[in-house]
């Protein structure tokens, strides 16, 4: 008999776990004789004898690997002590064995949320709601997932369903809802839910940290500091409050103090910083003018991210997508495809395109200070439509080949449906106001889907932020980003993805008529008024001086640049790469042709 334990970490033999043949499972009623063994395992757990409980549970499942109650017990054990991969495998198996198992479905969604596989997590959380529409935990899970997936408005709906379903709201739920409202920029409402949550349960670290981040984002550094005092008091050994404090100190310009705090944190952790701590340290060292040390910290942070997540740039997938898109959106094919009509009954999109850290947040904050433009932020809707496209067009093909259905007599108006689906989703996000003529969509790397965007919105302004590619790389490397097939995990993969996307943009521009405006970040910070007039003129909006003072825009930015756009315009991020040329040397050969095409040069520090 093969005694090998399964690689997933469940503790089961491989033949009883990931190599299990479902056809070999016994009928449910035939396992009744095993109930005493199950009761023994449960009793051991109740006594706190976890190892004994686990041993009995594994024995039980070795006899009957499809025995639901035993799987539930082992799942609970793995959820409590890991490994997470095993919990996911077990939950997945339970859902397959019984698709109506609400506990297993929620557990699977939870595991997927924890490893930030949001799209799949959403599928199972939605199933949970379908199975049990009055089940508070299902709504709560869906609320969390949607909040993380930049659909906070829909997430809020599910949190409020929980509030309606439970007699006494759990303080964690209140905190979750508060965080959701914070991400929507509804700071006052968020604050009141944090107050209720803390009043009900004052010593929850995550609640205090979330509230502190709210105050920090809202610019009330004193309140944030008080909350962090409380958080440290609640969890004196936890590194999270110290990291949050360091961020707060950086925002107050106290770089040395912040760095000292991080060093203290490192001492405490015996030098084992997490990703966030390393990146924060790098940013502080950068502000202190210590580029070599800063870059080393960024490298350590990225390395830590790779180690802890196991994720890496999905180069093949990125190449394949670019190949499919470039192959589909050709002049000859586009000449035969229809275009969606322009809706005149509501706010229309302005697409702010660009690689992460190219200045898209700055431009969105500036434009959305205009009374007729509202900020949509990083809307997931274009990707949603790309994903939904085959279904909406009743196509057996995937995107973009599914657009071939537009040649069919019953699908020739399909682009209008895609456009309406996009606008409907945007409407659900709750960002639109009655006075808005336009809304912005600044999801980074939306330019990957420029062809689809231009088919759905042939008259929409496309503002493409350009920035010196080496500055982009440096900034990407100093920030924790998940966009672009995880390209930001590594400097070289970020550069390769940047080139891939820019080549795709070039192809779209050569093959299509686009309402496209390239805008350089460098011009925006050096000639702000002229560039804003240029962009507003391009959009068709009158100039409004409020756009010049973007940092006073009441709409809070939600991207990694949220802090930068709360301070007046500055030029300190211009050509920051010059101090990092030795560190950036590995990616210069990759980027050099693009740097030249874009009209930039590579210059050493003056």
């Amino acid at each position: 008999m093969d005694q090998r334990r399964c690689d997933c970490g469940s503790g089961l033999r491989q033949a009883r776990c990931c190599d299990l043949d479902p056809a070999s499972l016994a009928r449910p009623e035939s396992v009744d004789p095993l109930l005493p063994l199950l009761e023994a395992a449960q009793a051991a757990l109740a006594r706190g004898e976890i190892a004994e409980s686990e041993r009995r549970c594994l024995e039980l499942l070795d006899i009957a690997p499809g025995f639901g109650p035993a799987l539930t017990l082992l799942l609970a054990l793995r959820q409590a002590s890991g490994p997470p991969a095993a919990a996911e495998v077990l939950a997945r198996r339970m859902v397959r064995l019984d698709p109506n198992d609400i506990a297993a479905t929620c557990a699977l969604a939870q595991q997927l949320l924890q490893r930030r596989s949001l799209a799949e997590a959403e599928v199972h959380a939605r199933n949970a709601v379908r199975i049990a529409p009055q089940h508070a935990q299902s709504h709560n899970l869906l609320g969390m997932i949607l909040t993380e997936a930049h659909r906070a408005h829909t997430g809020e709906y599910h949190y409020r369903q929980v509030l309606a379903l439970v007699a006494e709201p759990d303080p964690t739920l209140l905190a979750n809802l508060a965080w959701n409202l914070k991400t929507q920029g509804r700071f006052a409402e968020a604050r009141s839910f944090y107050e209720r949550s803390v009043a009900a349960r004052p010593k929850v670290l995550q609640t205090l940290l979330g509230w502190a981040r709210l105050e920090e984002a809202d610019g009330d550094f004193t309140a944030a500091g008080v909350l962090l005092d409380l958080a440290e008091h609640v969890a004196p050994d936890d590194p999270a409050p110290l990291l949050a404090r360091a961020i707060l100190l950086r925002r107050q310009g106290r770089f040395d103090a912040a760095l000292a705090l991080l060093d203290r944190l490192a001492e405490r952790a015996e030098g084992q910083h997490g990703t966030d701590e390393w990146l924060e340290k790098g940013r502080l060292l950068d502000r202190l003018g210590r580029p070599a040390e800063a870059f080393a910290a960024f490298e350590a942070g990225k390395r830590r991210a790779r180690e802890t997540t196991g994720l890496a740039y999905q180069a093949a997938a990125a190449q394949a997508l670019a190949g499919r898109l470039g192959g589909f959106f050709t002049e000859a094919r586009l000449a035969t495809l229809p275009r969606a009509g322009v809706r005149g009954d509501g706010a229309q999109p302005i697409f702010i395109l660009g690689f992460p850290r190219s200045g898209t947040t700055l431009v969105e904050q500036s434009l959305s200070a205009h009374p007729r433009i509202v900020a949509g932020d990083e809307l997931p809707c274009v990707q949603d439509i790309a994903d939904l496209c085959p279904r909406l067009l009743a196509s057996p093909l995937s995107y973009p080949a599914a657009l071939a259905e537009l040649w069919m007599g019953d699908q020739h108006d399909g682009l209008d449906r895609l456009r309406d689906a996009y606008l409907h989703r945007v409407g659900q996000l709750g960002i639109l106001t009655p006075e808005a003529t336009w809304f912005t969509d600044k999801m980074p790397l939306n330019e990957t889907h420029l062809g689809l965007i231009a088919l759905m919105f042939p008259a929409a302004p496309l503002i493409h932020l350009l920035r010196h590619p080496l500055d982009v790389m440096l900034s990407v490397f100093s920030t924790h980003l998940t966009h672009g097939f995880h390209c930001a995990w590594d400097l070289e993969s970020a550069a390769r993805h940047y080139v891939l996307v820019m080549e795709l943009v070039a192809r779209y521009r050569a093959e299509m008529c686009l309402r496209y405006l390239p805008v350089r970040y460098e011009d925006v910070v050096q000639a702000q008024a002229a560039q804003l007039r240029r962009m507003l003129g391009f959009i068709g909006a009158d100039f409004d001086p409020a756009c010049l003072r973007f940092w006073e825009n009441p709409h809070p930015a939600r991207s990694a640049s949220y802090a930068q756009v709360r301070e007046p315009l500055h030029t300190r991020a211009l050509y920051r790469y010059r101090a990092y040329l030795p560190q950036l040397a590995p990616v210069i050969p990759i980027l050099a042709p693009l740097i030249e095409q874009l009209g930039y040069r590579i210059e050493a520090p003056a």
Partner: protein
Amino acid sequence: MTAVTAPLDERFEQARTHERAGRLAEAERLLRDILAQAPEAAEPLHLLGVVSFRQQRPVEAAALIERAIARGANLALCHRNLCEIYRALGRLDEAVAAGEQAVALAPQDPDALMNLAIVRYERLELDAVLDGTARGIALKPDHADLLFKRGETLLLRGDFAAGLELYEWRYRINGVAPLMPPTAAPAWDGAPMADRPLLLITDQGFGDAIQFARYIPWALARCPDIVIACSRELQPLLSQIPGPRGLYDRWETVPNYGAFCPLSGLPRLMGTRLETIPSPGAYLRAEPARRAAWAARLADLLPRGYRRIGIAWGGRPTHANDRNRSTKLASFAALAQLPKTALVSLQKAPRQAEIAQYFGAAPLLNLGPELADFDDTMAVLDSLDLLISVDTSIVHLAGAMGRPAWVLLPYAPDWRWLLGRDDSPWYPSLRLFRQPAPRRWDLLLQEVVAALS
């Protein structure tokens, strides 16, 4: 079995045969083999230079032929070829020197005189062109290239009487496709012909057809039954000229005719002189529904209140003078700095791909992919404030519509744009901008921007 290598001379002859037959890759492979064994062999160096030039590698070609000359190759032929290669590279001073050297070494070679005349023309040394072509024609009175070049030169100077006669040599130039399939019908002599149809043929490029379409009413006055052989693309345009019985894009469908005439032959038959160029006003117009559709689309795509300037920077790449008359989008960079201006590209592929590398301040709309035919182009021209274009069919279209257009001309322009004037007797709505020196698009664009500012 061991391969037996042919002697060098034999392989060189094989390479020469390949080159003459247009099998350039094979020729190059053999020549490189030969040069690997005999790196300083002058004749193979020269021939490889010729092959490289024909494969669009003029820099390499010049270097190879310079080496061949240094090794004592057939000097007259080398200098003659080098003259043309330097011209292609825009190294006109060196081209003149090489051309003069070729003529000095082979004063009886009319081809050497021809190559030199072409360079002189590009430098607008027209007296020298007339002198050189006269010498060449004296050596070989039926040298079509020399006769045609002389005709072009005279036309450029405004001497239409002599120029249009010599312009008729255009179909006898080496490599020029025949006007039409063999026919027993005579070429029309311009005399009235009431009893039989006259076949007009749109020869040359689209721009020529648009320009000379103005002569159709004159021909109709002499031959009331006219049929026109033209490409499908031109049919929407020529169908706007009232009178002709039909337009045909396939020779086998052309009805019987009594005589034929290329459209570009009509100015000579009419006896056109500078002062008698027919100026019928706008004789082409956009179709109203198409115009309305494009007006609405451009209103959606372009910022309100912006000046709309259409641009095109290249003509048909296979045009003999494309190197001089076409440029790159990058040459238009100065236009991108104009305030409250939107650029609308009417450029078609393959050059429209250059738009991908445009990052200028003014918005630039790539309309090329959506312009299906001349009807679309005319409709768009009606929605623009101005067209700025190199010498290509679009400027003829704008001129024939009476739409404002600025034409960017090379230092030595096509004869129809004449010399030393910024207007055109052919099209009153056009304004001409001329390069102040060969290939100085930058200086020309500066002048354009100054005129716009």
